[in-house]
């Protein structure tokens, strides 16, 4: 990527988490001001100042307990330059000289993972819990329905109080008033980050989601207004950090975004006030923090990013590149060289120490009493369902280069190739009949310097189990760590805010001697995106959407009773199988009843119809492309072809692209229609497995009416 320009020598500090870097407010005149950043690694707080075109550490706290989050604060009306950090359930305050002035124990059972500071007010969140303290005294308390990922507070003349906004995993922003929920705002994906659009005041809150969407909402006292939303059409990574900063210098704050696939973006606003992409750059690892600021040369504003393994980098945008003076380039080069020399000296010293360490470690292998215990290395992983292609994406990131990865699964899944992966994948033979029950054994041998791997996995609903990843980094003594990911029975379902009540629905009801916690745990077992914690209410309703077919599911349950309804009969069938199996495991007798709506099957087939027709047509067109091209070469042009064929030739590139993007799409649709067929008659008490071959014949010469007829006639 050529449209960026590093104007400052980068620095590596150590593994960082989300939102771990902040620019301290500038004091004094612009020409003489010091540019300083506070930065959190997993174990230390650092203050970096920008001097001579490079980042220079000013102080670093001693490594201690893992630090999660940070916020800047200060007495109201003074610059926000006090630094607050949280580790565990403790909050500490530091001055920018590195002096600790506050220790506050919140006495929460869980670790704080989000925090906001304003004057004497402290707002903290720990998984489901929200707490507000003023002058370290308890004020308000709130229990959220799902995990809280981030918090911010808005204040303006229009609002009576400082109003907290929580970003919750169940795709809502919860706006609080005291200890109660004022209202919630539905957002298109699980929100991961919140920022104020105007740092000083204003009701506008910027949010980013784990599936890569971005939006702005205006918070009112009783309701909110959605200002704009940016979809993730280009399938970029999830958003980890954002900042509002006027980087272009047009008087309007631009939006800076950092994503977990390494993408850095700057959105500006066009004349109609719509956000448009102004600048994009891709780093090799996830971007955990992003800030706008003036760091390199006196008059240029830049984007400063921190990444997972702790690289702090400054980027200028294209428009400013041309103005970079030759003198600066020269100074920069000199600065880099001295840095290189210093690093080399450091390396030499370290190498000596490491050799000593190795020797001592070797000696312990002679001892019969000594043990070898290598500390756990940190892995940044994410396993998420992608809405667009109904497949799971697994990303793994380690602070040093990955040597190899072993993937093992006890459930049938397909591993898809990801273009940007350079690792060599190799599938090992695995016989599921064997007692070891492996369905997938694959190794990835990584090229040097790979710290991040991205994989895609396609699951089949009804087949559930565990996917395990064993990651071995290139680090002595060699160790590997295993991570587990659940493939749930209804793995292609995703939470939504509501369902369409007009559809014909099938119902499944359970009655039995089970507790609320028990049935909740069964639902957690079956469906993704359900909070693990049993809801505080007496009963609960969740809505889901099948990302592949678009069918829906409603789950309502309480102690002793559960009701599930879906327009997809296969969903009901899977639920009924798994729930009764889970209940049997706990020796609980379930009274299961069904209310099957025969119209629902035709309805589902009609829903599949446009997808199927499109795929069949696409496959047919793609099949013709080569032959048509050959005819074109033979005849010298394509003018003799009928318009339909000519258009296939004209669109051939995009057709092939589309076809490549959705491998096995048709097979998946066929599989789901077959399941639908079997399940429909299963509920009638008939086994129609012998008739599947006739069904496949019909699908081979597909026509909606004959398919509907076949489903009805059997």
């Amino acid at each position, binding site marked *: 990527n050529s449209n960026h320009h590093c104007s400052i020598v980068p620095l590596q500090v150590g593994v960082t988490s989300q939102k771990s870097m902040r620019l301290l407010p500038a004091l004094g005149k612009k020409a003489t001001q010091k540019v300083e950043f506070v930065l959190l690694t997993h174990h230390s707080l650092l203050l970096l100042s920008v001097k001579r075109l490079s980042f220079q550490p000013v102080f670093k706290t001693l490594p201690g307990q893992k630090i999660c989050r940070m916020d800047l604060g200060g007495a109201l009306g003074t610059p926000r330059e006090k630094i607050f950090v949280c580790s565990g359930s403790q909050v500490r305050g530091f001055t920018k000289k590195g002096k600790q002035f506050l220790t506050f124990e919140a006495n929460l059972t869980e670790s704080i993972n989000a925090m906001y500071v304003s004057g004497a007010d402290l707002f903290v969140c720990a998984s489901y819990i929200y707490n507000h303290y003023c002058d370290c005294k308890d004020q308000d308390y709130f229990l959220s329905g799902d995990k809280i990922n981030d918090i911010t507070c808005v204040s303006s003349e229009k609002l009576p109080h400082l109003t907290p906004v929580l970003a919750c995993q169940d795709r809502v922003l919860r706006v609080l008033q005291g200890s109660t929920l004022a209202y919630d705002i539905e957002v298109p994906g699980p929100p991961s980050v919140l920022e104020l659009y105007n740092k000083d005041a204003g009701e506008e809150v910027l949010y980013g989601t784990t599936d890569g969407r971005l939006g702005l909402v205006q918070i009112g006292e009783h309701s909110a207004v959605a200002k704009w939303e940016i979809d993730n059409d280009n399938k970029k990574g999830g958003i980890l950090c954002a900042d509002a900063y006027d980087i272009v210098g047009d008087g309007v704050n631009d939006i800076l975004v950092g994503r977990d696939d390494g993408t850095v973006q700057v959105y500006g606003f066009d004349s109609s006030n719509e956000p448009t992409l102004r600048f994009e750059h891709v780093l090799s690892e996830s971007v955990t923090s992003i800030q706008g600021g003036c760091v390199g040369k006196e008059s240029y504003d830049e984007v400063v990013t921190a990444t997972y393994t702790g690289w702090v980098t400054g980027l200028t945008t294209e428009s400013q590149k041309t103005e970079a003076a030759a003198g600066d380039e020269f100074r920069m080069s000199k600065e880099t060289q001295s840095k*290189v020399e210093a690093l080399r000296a*450091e390396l030499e010293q370290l190498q000596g120490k490491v050799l000593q*360490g190795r020797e001592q470690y070797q000696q312990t292998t002679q001892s019969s009493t000594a043990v*070898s215990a*290598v*500390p756990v290395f940190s892995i940044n992983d994410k396993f998420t369902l992608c809405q667009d292609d109904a497949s799971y994406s697994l990303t793994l990131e380690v602070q040093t280069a990955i040597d190899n990865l072993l993937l093992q699964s006890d459930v049938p899944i397909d591993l898809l190739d990801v273009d940007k992966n350079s690792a060599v994948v190799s599938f*090992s033979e695995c016989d599921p009949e064997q007692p070891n029950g492996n369905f997938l054994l694959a190794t990835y041998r990584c090229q040097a310097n790979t710290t991040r791997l991205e994989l895609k996995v396609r699951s089949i609903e009804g087949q559930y189990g565990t996917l395990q990843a064993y990651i071995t980094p290139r680090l002595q003594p*060699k160790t*590997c760590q295993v991570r587990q990911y659940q493939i749930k029975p209804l793995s292609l379902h995703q939470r939504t805010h509501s369902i369409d009540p007009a559809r014909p629905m099938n119902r499944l009801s359970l009655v039995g001697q089970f507790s609320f916690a028990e049935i909740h745990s069964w639902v957690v077992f079956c469906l993704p995106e359900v909070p693990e914690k049993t809801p505080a209410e007496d009963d609960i309703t969740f809505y889901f959407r099948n990302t592949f077919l678009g069918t829906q599911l409603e789950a309502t349950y309480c102690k002793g009773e559960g009701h599930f309804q879906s327009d997809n009969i296969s969903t009901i069938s899977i639920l009924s199988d798994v729930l009764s199996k889970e209940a049997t495991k706990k020796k609980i007798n379930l009274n299961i009843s069904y209310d099957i709506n025969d119209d629902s099957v035709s309805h589902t087939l009609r829903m599949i119809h446009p997808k199927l027709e499109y795929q069949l047509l696409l496959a047919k067109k793609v099949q013709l492309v080569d032959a048509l091209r050959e005819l074109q070469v033979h005849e010298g042009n394509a003018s003799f072809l009928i318009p339909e064929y000519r258009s296939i030739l004209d669109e051939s590139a995009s057709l092939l692209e589309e076809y490549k993007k959705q491998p096995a799409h048709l097979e998946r649709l066929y599989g789901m229609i077959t399941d639908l067929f079997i399940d429909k008659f299963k509920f009638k008490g008939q086994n129609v497995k012998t008739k599947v071959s006739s069904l496949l014949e019909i699908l081979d010469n597909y026509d909606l009416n004959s398919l509907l007829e076949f489903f009805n006639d059997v």
Partner: protein
Amino acid sequence: MMVPIFTLKLNHKINPRMVTIGKFDGVHPCLTAATQAGKVFIHNPHVRGQKPAAHRLTQSTLDSDISLLNINQAVTCLAAGKLGPDTVGDTLFVGSQTNLLAYDVHDNADIFYREVTDGANAIVLGKLGNIRSPLAIIGGNCALQGFDHDGNDQFWTVTGDNVRSLVLCDFTGDGKNELLVGSEDFDIRVFKEDELVSEMTENETVTSLCHMHGSRFGYALANGTVGVYDRTARYWRIKSKNHAMSIHAFDLNGDGVVELITGWSNGKVDARSDRTGEVIFKDNFSSAVAGVVEGDYRLDGQKELICASTDGEVRGYLPASKDQKGSLMDSSSEQELIRELSQRKQNLLLELRNYEENAKGVSQTNSEVGVIPANTQLQTALSVKPATEVQRAHVELSISTPNETIIRAVLIFAEGIFEGESHVVHPSAQNLSGCVRVPIVPPKDIPVDLHIKAFVGGKCSTQFHVFEITRQLPRFSMYQILADPSAAPPGGRVSFSVNERPQRVVMWLNQNFLLPEGVETPNVTFASLRGRGLLSFNMASNGQITLRTDDIDLAGDVVQSLASFLAMEDLSAEADFPTYFEELRTTLTEVDEFHAVHQKLTADMAEHSNYIRSVLVQAEDARLMGDMTAMKKRHRQLYDLNRDLINEYKIRSNNHNALVACLKSVNQAIQRAGRLRVGKPKNHVISACRDAIKSNNVNALFRIMRGGTASS
């Protein structure tokens, strides 16, 4: 940073690996490539202007710059160059599965058109050894054939499997070219004329070869590996998940040494240093790269590197000038260096932290970390396991820990014996123990290094220690020694004399077979675990070794392995493989039959085509006369004829495929007979067998295979 000096969109598909540049009029270079529908296109942008300037290469006139050659057969290889002493321009050579065409593009005339029954998968032009005239050498199904400018067959030999790549270079450093042949049995063979002088075994089909400089050459395999050899020593190699479509040697950075340029299936082109394999330049096309060539395409005296993609996009790159040297990638290389050094620093810091934390010691209760006794060492053992009711015969690798630790999983990376490059054993949680047995079934008799990674820890650990061990699997590991060799010995045998003590042969046996207790005498019998019968080994006091087996390939492998162990340059042998020879005799008869059928079918087809022509004329006449009934009738006739023709074509093509298969097995038989000998006797057998086939003397053929010579 380097950018293309020109870019062209040719609007024609390009078949992979079939791209060349020829100066057909002796002056103007033309990019020539095979495209769809059995055609070859020639791009000549220089034709109209007298002295066209470089900037003329623009997109607008493209289509009129291309002329198409109709070959009417699927093209399989393409080359352009000068063979004749007094020709003005380059000749274009086009190979297909059945023919080789030498074509004068300038005069639009065939120079020769030869039938090549073994097909032409690869072609190379140039001088070979002491053969006076330059040759067009084609590699087909197990055969190599060289033609001079007039189409005379000047060179012929056989090789182990279907040829996929060829290159000429002075491998031995004697000032004359040797022929390097890459084939589907994963071997790179070096021929000094028809004498095989060297053999390098790779682990996949060798798809491309290119000469770098001196005795150094580049190669590419079907599994995504590219690398560089200097003579028989591999300098470096890298493996990608993409496939190398085309490789070429070109000095892109202007340092006076060529780099290996690779065009990949994902559209990437990269240039790698011939010494280290380090990437010094890369670029990306939107579709797979079809070919990488070089030529002075702008006619300004400078050669460009020219890359063409399968979609017909062509880019030319000028080599870097002196002052630009070494900076093809990006200007921020200094920052790259900082990144690299910092990364190394981080790595060392982490390693140091590992030792420090380890020295501090941890509580035994923290079992997740995978605490193991420091003196844990893995034991590995290899043994031969014959087939049982539940499991087929295999070599067993057993790995065990000496204490209560468990092995969570075992990864074995090895080349050529697994489906992919690795094999994994991952016991289920209930079956975890301190011992893992890995069944291995090597498909071929080759020595293999097993790179073992074992994850060792506790039952509930989430982090494991990784033990890395390398073990070698001997060449003949799938053979079990028989304690009681009372079974009837196999009918096939090969015998030869060696001037060595029996102890040396015993040493070879112990090194190349999996023998739990070792053997002390060279008189042993093995059973093949692949179900290919017995292999018995006998050495008389006079140094006469007799090898009995019905598997002629195995006999050849044993002879070659033993001869190279004993450093024997020449070895003649007597052999008899009654079953195999009988099969071969049948095959030879079949070849004659297929030939006869082929001729008859060709005659039938000619007749049909004449008939079609006349019916077509009649139908057209009827249309002009307005006699629609007659016209319809004729068209119906045409329709029937067409159907017949298609049916006949199917028969013809089946017949042809059967014929090719038979010819391949005949070529393989010659190769196998050769492999029972070493050095000169080997070459003698191959050429004598070839003469026997040429003169259709079947009895002489078997005499040679048995005795090593035609006489006696």
